[in-house]
């Protein structure tokens, strides 16, 4: 009988001790000797607490055995952590049972070494935490699907992206989310045909039209897991990116259109100036300042606020370019008025022609000449009066030049405004008026 007991005890994988009432070791099994690296002769007949330089002298263990002496039959799964000299730190679950053999107070102590198990569990918990946090920290929408395509988990990005709560998604088939919004044929193809065959796909484009958030272009990456019946589906919302590159393209087209228009204007001014130039010198002195004026208008538009050029800046710069900074002979209005691109370009050319005329024939061609320019805006209209004075006996020019044509016609033609040229005896008076903003005008700035 004893042999059978010994045999059983010896084959059991867990260390087992039988202790006398005074904690002397009566019996130990092979698992004990091997697990704690102690030989039998240093164990049997010794008090447990003296074993191996007292390394079993563990207060918790003493307490546990003490409990048995107070009459308890068994103490189960008593968790003890201890540093052993030879084998290092161990975590054990101890179960002690009174054997109640006649006349003795023997105790059976079963030691369950759970050091490895706990370490493994901790590692697993760590890995779990890593994957949870990984899923949540990713900016892409992430969906964990079961092999039946039921949503197991979604991350915050997914919820933000599609304005959905985790509870509305988890536990439902992916196609059913948000009233079957996700029942998209391409998505079915990707998940049901491509994924089972290839176990993974990247950058699969799917377009969806979602009632709440509108049309979306999504790029999907998916992985079928090997060790679990799960699918990872990562979703990148490409909509904004695509719209951005689309608008880049449009802007580029717009820019090209503008450049071509400016070149065409430069060409037209050249052609008109050639028509009215008797010599190369005459051409040069009329054409180059016109080009300069166009260029100044572009500068003002570029530096202006919200793409608008200030009307006063245009007048001042044109006069300065003609050698007439604001001084005693020139009086200018101060009120700022923003002109759109089209307005500024046309207006600048008109002012340029007026200033050129003043230098050649008008206020700036005679010592007593004066110029006052006033402007205002209101009732949806911008009005300007250019008044030259201090001249004597002003006569109409012999021929009408390109400048006069520009002044008289372009405001009406381009800006739906009006222009009156009035040649008074003491100088030219020009009145312009045009709507503040063209309705559908202004190119997307």
């Amino acid at each position, binding site marked *: 009988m004893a042999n059978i007991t010994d045999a059983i005890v010896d084959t059991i994988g867990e260390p087992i001790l039988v202790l006398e009432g005074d904690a002397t070791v009566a019996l130990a099994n092979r698992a004990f000797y091997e697990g704690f690296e102690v030989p039998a002769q240093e164990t049997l007949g010794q008090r447990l607490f003296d074993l191996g330089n007292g390394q079993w002298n563990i207060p918790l263990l003493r307490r546990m055995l003490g409990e048995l002496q107070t009459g308890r039959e068994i103490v189960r799964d008593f968790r003890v952590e201890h540093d052993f000299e030879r084998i290092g730190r161990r975590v054990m679950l101890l179960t002690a049972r009174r054997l109640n053999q006649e006349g003795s107070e023997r105790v059976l102590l079963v030691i369950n070494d759970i050091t490895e198990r706990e370490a493994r569990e901790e590692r697993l918990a760590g890995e779990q935490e890593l994957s949870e946090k990984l899923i949540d920290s990713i900016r892409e929408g992430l969906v964990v699907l079961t092999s039946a395509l039921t949503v197991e988990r979604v991350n915050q990005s997914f919820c933000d992206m599609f304005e959905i709560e985790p509870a509305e998604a988890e536990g439902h088939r992916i196609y059913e989310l948000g009233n079957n919004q996700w029942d998209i044929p391409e998505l079915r193809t990707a998940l049901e045909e491509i994924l089972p065959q290839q176990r993974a796909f990247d950058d699969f484009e799917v377009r969806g039209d979602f009632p709440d958030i509108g049309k979306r272009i999504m790029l999907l990456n998916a992985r079928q897991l090997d060790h679990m019946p799960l699918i990872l589906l990562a979703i990148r919302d490409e909509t904004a990116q695509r719209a951005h590159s689309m608008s880049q393209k449009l802007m580029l087209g717009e820019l090209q259109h503008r450049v*071509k228009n400016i070149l065409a204007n430069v060409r037209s001014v050249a052609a008109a100036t050639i028509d009215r130039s008797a010599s190369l010198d005459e051409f040069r002195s009329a054409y180059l300042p016109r080009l300069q004026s166009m260029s100044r208008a572009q500068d003002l538009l570029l530096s202006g606020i919200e793409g608008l050029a200030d009307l006063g800046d245009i007048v001042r710069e044109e006069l300065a370019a003609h050698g007439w900074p604001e001084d005693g002979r020139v009086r200018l209005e101060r009120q700022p008025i923003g002109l759109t691109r089209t307005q500024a370009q046309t207006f600048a050319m008109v002012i340029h022609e007026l200033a050129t005329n003043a230098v050649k024939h008008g206020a700036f061609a005679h010592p007593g000449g004066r110029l006052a320019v006033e402007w205002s805006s209101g009732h949806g209209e911008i009005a300007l009066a250019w008044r030259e004075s201090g001249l004597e006996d002003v006569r109409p020019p012999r021929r009408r030049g390109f400048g006069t044509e520009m002044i008289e016609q372009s405001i009406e033609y381009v800006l739906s405004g009006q222009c009156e040229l009035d040649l008074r005896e003491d100088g030219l008076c020009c009145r312009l008026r045009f709507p503040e903003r063209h309705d559908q005008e202004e190119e997307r700035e």
Partner: protein
Amino acid sequence: MTGKGPLEGKRLLVVEDEFLIARELAQFLEDQGAALAAMTGQLEAAQEPLDGAVVDVQLGAEQSYPLIDRLRARGVPLIILTGYNQTTLREDLTGCPILAKPFQEREFERLAVQLFAPERASEQAAPMPQGGSAAKGGEGAGAGGAGGGGLRP
């Protein structure tokens, strides 16, 4: 100009929002003898009969496709003016005669005569080459047109 030209008697429409370009196109057509039905930067089409039209695709922020379609439906020969690549033009128009901005006078003249006065296109074809030989272009007045560009001294 009272002289005749290859476009004499033709009533033409110029639709271009840039004043300078419009007036140059108009002037050029008039120099070729055409009568201008209208020169405008707006989308309203002239109701009167036309022998042809030059239409810019982009009028400010608007595109002139509705006008182009109406004119085409009326059978008015069109030259489309554009600052864009042909590739960004509406697809069904890529077959239309297109004048790219900034335009070449010679190219404009060739297209204008070919489309707006096809019956005179063949006589025009011969004297096309440069200046000196322009006198051959026919009865005196032709010199203005064939000289090719309003570039008078």
